[in-house]
């Protein structure tokens, strides 16, 4: 087996034909569909997919960036940890520059705090093993895809000087929240391909069974996204019965990755947690089970923050962008007071953020705001 089968998905001729077939669709009313994955936003931006959509179809980005929805309080706690002498804070790179209420991990590092960017929880565990004199904290942020490796690294028995700051969230309760009125009239979802490797098609059955809303699991090549759009339109238009469809079968199966699900369930339990700019979503977070509480950095280090957390700074529209209610371009700060170099809100900091992706793929001839 060669990997040519993966390369073929990138064939621009296929994407062009699919794009033409989608452009030719006529809608008799405005329709909004949503994806909930930062990687999808990049695929859409990079390929210019919004430019080929039928007139009247809005493809919006929902809460698909785990770093963007991580509440300021959690970053405030990480900042507090970074100020303790014998503590090393390890984090995925995306979290490094996200503003907390009064600081960021980047600023703490500049002020002498020991903050290190890692690619994997394994790197953080390894660092802890090599530095028994330090207490090493890993900021556990992410969705199901990331929760599974973190759970596996905890089940493998990390050293006693290793702790996590739990800020993991799961996608299905967020979709429920959106459908129960948390967002505008979303009529269908493009479902996140790699979260789906863990939870499978079964993880989304409620979309159809409870809400009668279509969902399409999609990969990350332009052809994958285009096929998902076409499938959603066929279901919304009534040509097909509404259902949850898996168009990413080369990776995702019906029941998902049971081993990954088991690892998550052994280490974590679900609880109500806050999403930055959105508020509390019931049963949408993963917190450590009592058997693993000894590695909870907040409890072990007695971390506290004095200041009232500020999730959304004045002028920032992140809270509306995250819900798909506003486009980044509608924000007065976008591209001017808020850029990747000098970000104002979390959606511009993380590479997965909607504002960041929209800025990166903005038209080169876009005129400055008047």
């Amino acid at each position, binding site marked *: 087996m060669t990997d040519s089968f993966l390369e073929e998905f990138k064939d621009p001729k296929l994407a062009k034909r699919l794009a033409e077939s989608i452009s030719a669709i006529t809608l008799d009313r405005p329709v909004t569909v949503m994806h909930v994955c930062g990687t999808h936003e990049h695929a859409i931006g990079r390929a210019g997919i919004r430019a080929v959509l039928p007139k009247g179809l809005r493809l919006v980005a929902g809460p698909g960036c785990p770093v963007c929805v991580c509440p300021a309080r959690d970053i405030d706690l990480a900042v507090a940890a970074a100020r303790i002498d014998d503590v090393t804070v390890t984090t995925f790179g995306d979290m490094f520059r996200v503003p907390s209420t009064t600081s960021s991990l980047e600023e703490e590092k500049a002020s002498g705090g020991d903050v290190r960017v890692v690619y994997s929880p394994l790197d953080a565990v390894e660092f802890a093993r090599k530095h028994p004199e330090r207490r090493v904290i890993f900021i556990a942020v992410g969705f199901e895809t990331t929760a599974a490796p973190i759970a596996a690294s905890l089940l493998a028995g990390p050293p006693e000087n290793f702790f996590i700051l739990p800020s993991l969230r799961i996608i299905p309760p967020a979709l429920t929240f959106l459908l129960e009125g948390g967002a505008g009239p979303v009529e269908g979802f493009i479902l996140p391909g790699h979260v789906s490797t863990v939870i499978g098609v079964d993880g989304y059955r409620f979309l159809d069974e409870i809400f009668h809303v279509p969902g399409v699991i999609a990969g990350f090549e332009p052809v994958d996204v285009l096929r998902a759009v076409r499938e959603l339109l066929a279901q919304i238009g009534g040509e097909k019965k509404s259902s949850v469809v898996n168009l990413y079968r080369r990776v995702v199966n019906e029941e998902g990755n049971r081993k*990954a699900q088991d690892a998550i369930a052994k280490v974590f339990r679900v609880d109500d947690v806050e999403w930055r700019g959105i508020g509390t979503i019931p049963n949408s977070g993963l917190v450590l089970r009592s058997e693993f509480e000894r590695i909870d950095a907040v409890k072990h280090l007695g971390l506290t923050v004095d200041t009232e957390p500020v999730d959304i700074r004045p002028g920032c529209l992140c809270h509306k962008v995250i819900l798909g209610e506003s486009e980044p371009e509608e924000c007065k700060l976008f591209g001017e007071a808020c850029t990747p170099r000098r970000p104002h809100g979390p959606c511009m900091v993380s590479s997965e953020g909607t504002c960041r992706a929209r800025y990166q793929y903005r038209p080169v001839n876009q005129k400055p705001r008047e």
Partner: protein
Amino acid sequence: MCLGIPMKIVEMDGQEAVAIAGGIRKRIRLDLLDGVQMGDFVLIHTGYAIEKLDAEEARETLELIKQVYRAGMTGETEETTS
């Protein structure tokens, strides 16, 4: 964040393995996946293999897409039931 990189398994030793893609070699863990074999393509996320890539499903999907390509704007026959 949920970025998954398809890589090919070229060495295995218990739950540890080495995978390659585009000239990059990486040590990865297999704790989250049963039945991985040498030469398998797996999706890697934060150092762990989280799922196998199914070449047969990939070929079928490509064939469906190509049918659209050949059919042009009419006569789509794609079967997309889950």
